């Protein structure tokens, strides 16, 4: 990042400084090329909001979510305890993450193992920053665009977060077009429950293609997602229908960063 430097908790601690909030990047956000763009957009927004944030950098490890969903509780707890030790050592109180799976695990499953933090998903934080005037969206970069929003299962049904992402889209001055299956009835992208890491079982169709059908029905220019795994699945689904030129799959953070000219 050329405009500013993303600092790690270790460098902050060495300088005797404290961070207001930890940006938990997650594995997809760290390594997946497409998801890295989401990560950078979030970092730019946090910076623009003048938030003193830091990442764990190489000290961050997978939360263990896919291991837990796949039934490997041993591996999950090993990952979790290792992370909790790191987080507690830095005295972390508040965490923001752009991954709903990390969000769910940190928020709901770490407390039983001694990790108690205020955990926010980036859509909630960004919406708050917009509401509080800490950041502002310039003009109507997306004015008149048809944007549909794909609910991530781990934000929506798992944690009842349906409104913050939609409020952001409204603030973009775009027309929010709901898919026939949305909010509590939203259809999974097909990645959750460790499916991301294996071939689908035998069937008649891939889940992400079924979801892409819903997207196509809305005649939208943009599909907003809020999860790096949904991002991968939806992009593949849209590509399957040869619609990647007409339909952009973007994370909400990218849309906001774009509208902020970041």
């Amino acid at each position: 990042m050329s405009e500013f430097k993303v600092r790690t908790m270790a460098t902050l601690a060495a300088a005797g400084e404290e961070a207001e909030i930890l940006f938990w990047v997650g594995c997809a956000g760290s390594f997946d090329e497409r998801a890295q763009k989401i990560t950078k957009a979030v970092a730019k927004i946090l910076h623009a909001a003048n938030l003193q944030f830091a990442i764990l950098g190489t000290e961050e490890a997978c939360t263990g979510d896919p291991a837990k969903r796949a039934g490997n509780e041993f591996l999950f707890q090993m990952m979790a305890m290792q992370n909790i030790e790191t987080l507690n050592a830095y005295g972390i109180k508040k965490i923001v993450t752009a991954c709903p799976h990390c969000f769910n695990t940190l928020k709901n499953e770490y407390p039983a193992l001694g990790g108690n933090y205020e955990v926010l998903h980036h859509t909630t934080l960004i919406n708050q920053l917009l509401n509080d005037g800490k950041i502002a969206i310039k003009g109507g970069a997306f004015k008149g665009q048809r944007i549909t929003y794909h609910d991530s299962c781990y934000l929506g049904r798992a944690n009842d977060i349906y409104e913050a992402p939609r409020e952001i889209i409204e603030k973009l001055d775009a027309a929010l077009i709901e898919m026939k299956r949305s909010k509590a009835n939203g259809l999974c992208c097909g990645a959750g429950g460790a499916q991301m890491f294996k071939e689908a079982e035998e069937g008649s169709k891939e889940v992400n293609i079924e979801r892409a059908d819903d997207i196509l029905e809305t005649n939208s220019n943009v599909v907003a997602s809020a999860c790096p795994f949904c991002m991968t699945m939806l992009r593949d689904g849209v590509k399957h229908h040869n619609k990647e030129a007409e339909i952009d799959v973007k994370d909400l953070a990218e849309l906001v960063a774009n509208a902020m000219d970041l």
Partner: protein
Amino acid sequence: MPKILFGSNQLPNIVLQEKHMISSIVFLILTGVASYFFAKNLSKIRRNILLGKDIDLSDNKPLRFKTMLGVAFGQSKMKARPVPFVLHFIVYAGFILINIEVLEILIDGIFGTHRVLSVFGPIYDIAIGFFEILAFAVSIACIIFLSRRYILKIARFQSPELKGFASRDAATILFIEIVLMGALLKMNAADQILQLRGVDHYINAGSFPISSWLVVPFYNWLNMSNASLILLERIAWWFHIIGIFLFMNYLPFSKHFHIIMAFPNTWYSNLKAKGELNNMASVTQEVKLMLDPSAQTPEGYQPPTSFGVKDVTDLTWKNLMDAYTCTECGRCTSVCPQNQTGKTLSPRKVMMDTRDRLEEVGKNIDANKGTFVDDSKNLHSYISEAELWACNTCNACVEACPVNINPMEIIVEMRRYKVMEQSAAPAAINNMFSNMENNQAPWQFSPMDRANWTQED
């Protein structure tokens, strides 16, 4: 006895009383037998549910009460599908309210009275009239339900798991309900003619907005005598109450048991975020010892003997209660992303398999004087790996269930057994595990590259 049925108004009081006594005794015996078998089967189900592992769900009683009131009593989650919601609400309201009339039948049956609640006067008349309308509406709703299943063939009623008993079960229940409602209307029709004719014992009570045009003209056309009408009225009365007793005793074997279980099952709802999977405390201690060999084990610590769910007895009693609560409506399966894309996974089947296996285990225990004798089967004999490994843990099934059943939890617990007891995960999943162990990420990236993105634009 048969003689009494012909013109009871001419009989001396003493014979009348004797008649009532005999029928009261028969009625009491029937009630006793029906209640005995019902209680016996209920206690068997209770025993089966308690074969599950303990889980503490005694917290937050006000919220539990509120959830039960909204979800079970108020049917809040049914509203997602308006047509079945309205139809089901009619049948549900009929079930609850017509039971007031059953209460009267019980009192009349025991004391030989007739329409004893008519002491309430006009309120009684309105109530009986309302019940007639309800009974008619219930019959219509049940006919529509039957046609949805067997004529319109709505997709969620055509799944493979509904073949055989499950399909017959649904038809049986709907058929019994139509027949019972019919008996009520036939009884009322005969009763009102007898009332009009001023036949002794048939006091003027009730109003009959349905049977008066639906059934009475038919009786009038037959030009029936008082005696035959009394016979008809009595037959319908006995048919109705015996039907109810049979229905009650069919419940514990049927999916229709949800009419009872919906209430306790929603009381014991999961009150946490749906995304939270339970923490395995047994693993926590082991992991602590693994990470820090010098850590002290708590006094009396017993290392766990098994992980995850092999058989139904490894599930919690709430999972087992879920299985007995399931009425196989298939809302879960109809929203399952995997089922919708042609995979074998069906959350409804997971619940049906759990109940079937639990029944099997229960029968095994009964047959072997109270102890389970290994039958070389377990829950995995019913639910395949292809089903288990298809799940997205997306919570759509949990969200869709009108009585807060959680099929997903059973799937994850069974995966735990596969992985931690049998090391039998799909190869790609095992790969993901080893990446996580070695690289702290599910993919094969170097952990040292985790913050590389900060160096790019």
